[in-house]
């Protein structure tokens, strides 16, 4: 009996420790950090030597934890996807715990995933939490012979005082020629033309992306609806996924000489 009481006390104490919060914006991260840094080697290893690569593009998880969990359950039920791209807006308010909650849900995926920075993720000191939990705001990785370049395009959040999109970074990627790249896929949270984007450089940005080997299309999130636009009338498509509330995602298939996508509802 006495042992039982002690056990209850210990459990209550552990539960209480879990509830110690210094501030909703304290950026005191519990659990795993640098998720992109951990997942990118997994993606590169899983896709190495593969001709056909298949990935899911989703985003704007925001306050839709139930829907995100359903997405993870659904995706774990199929075994033809190599990895997942979260297109940004992990959080709704930039609260520290929001990043942990979405990380904990997404970590249940059987396949690796990468996460981009969304405009909501910058609110308060969300950027610090994002960088700690997921990693750098600009990054790239290889999936077979496809190079994914993931860019922060949320210029409005930084009041145009930071170089967004970071051309220095894009040029460094361009210079860093990886010979085995046969296709480049730029991914961003906000597409050119949106009020969040630095539209003074939309065309320059687009023209620069076109200089990457095999650049056929771009991916984005943010709009909370399915998008498919030839933004610059040059045949380069910008595909946007919807938000989690709509319970769908874009499933892309890349082969050496073809790409295609479908909208999957769950």
């Amino acid at each position, binding site marked *: 009996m006495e042992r039982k009481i002690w056990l209850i006390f210990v459990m209550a104490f552990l539960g*209480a420790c879990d509830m110690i*919060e*210094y*501030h909703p914006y304290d*950026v005191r991260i519990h659990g795993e950090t640098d998720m992109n840094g951990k997942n990118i080697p997994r993606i590169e290893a899983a896709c190495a030597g593969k001709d056909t690569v298949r990935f899911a593009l989703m985003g704007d998880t925001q*306050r839709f934890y139930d829907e995100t969990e359903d997405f993870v359950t659904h995706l774990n039920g199929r075994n033809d996807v190599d990895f997942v791209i979260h297109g940004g807006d992990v959080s*709704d308010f930039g609260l520290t715990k929001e990043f942990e909650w979405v990380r904990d849900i997404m970590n249940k995926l059987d396949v690796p995933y990468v996460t981009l920075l969304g405009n909501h993720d910058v609110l308060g*000191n969300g950027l*610090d939490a994002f960088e700690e939990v997921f990693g750098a705001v600009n990054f790239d990785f290889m999936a077979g012979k496809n190079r994914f370049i993931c860019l922060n395009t949320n210029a409005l959040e930084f*009041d145009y005082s930071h170089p967004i999109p970071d051309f220095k970074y894009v040029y460094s990627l361009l210079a860093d020629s990886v010979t085995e790249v046969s296709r480049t896929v730029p991914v961003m949270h906000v597409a050119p033309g949106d009020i969040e984007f630095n539209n003074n450089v939309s065309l320059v940005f687009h023209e620069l992306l076109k200089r990457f080997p095999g650049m056929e299309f771009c991916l984005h999130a943010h709009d909370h609806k399915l998008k498919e636009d030839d933004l610059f009338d040059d045949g380069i498509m910008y595909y946007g996924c919807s938000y989690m509330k709509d319970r769908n995602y874009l499933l892309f298939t890349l082969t050496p000489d073809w790409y295609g996508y479908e909208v999957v509802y769950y």
Partner: protein
Amino acid sequence: MKWFIINVICGACLLLAGMTARAEGVDSVRTQRKAERYERRVAYFEKRREKYQRGWERLIPKYQIVQFAGSIGAVSVGTGWDYGKKGQWETDFLLGYLPRFSSNEGKVTLTLRENYIPWRVKLGGCWSYRPFSVSLGMNTVLDDEFWVKEPERYPAPYYKFSTRVRFLLFVGQRFAVDLGENHWCKRISFYYEVGTCDLYLISAFSNKWLRPNDILSLSFGVKFQIL
């Protein structure tokens, strides 16, 4: 004729003497009245000063608080006033310190909150127990990255909430020990509270995935009742 002159002089002397005597009497009454008036004025102003002092004295905080956690900083120190028939109402003002952790700098927060502690149960000796307290508070982070109103760069309304001001709702319990008047503080209360903030409530409202543990925050504190 001589008589007449003598009479006039005597009369004049008498009259003068009489008048002087009368004047002396009037003067002493006047002085007394003046003194009385003066005293009254002094007393009146004394009273006014006292009233003025009492008015400001009411603003002297009645107690000091030290709190750990509770979504307003790692450690917060504060002060406040209690009022109501049984001191069941309290207004606290706290200054919290939030260490840097993974952000760019440490921060200071301010909290203003109103507590309601309706019941008091006397335990043995000098101990007492307050089984229920509820507090409604507002916390603000003193940091440039946080705003009350969206900065002008946004096409209004863009985000429709403030990152700077959080509304807090906590419930808790207290134990107090009375030390009596011959101590530096009359009473020491130990309290704990469990609560949440507005944005967590909004998040939990539409999600089954979030458990109470995810959104609840715990705090511990000590209150030193001085006045």
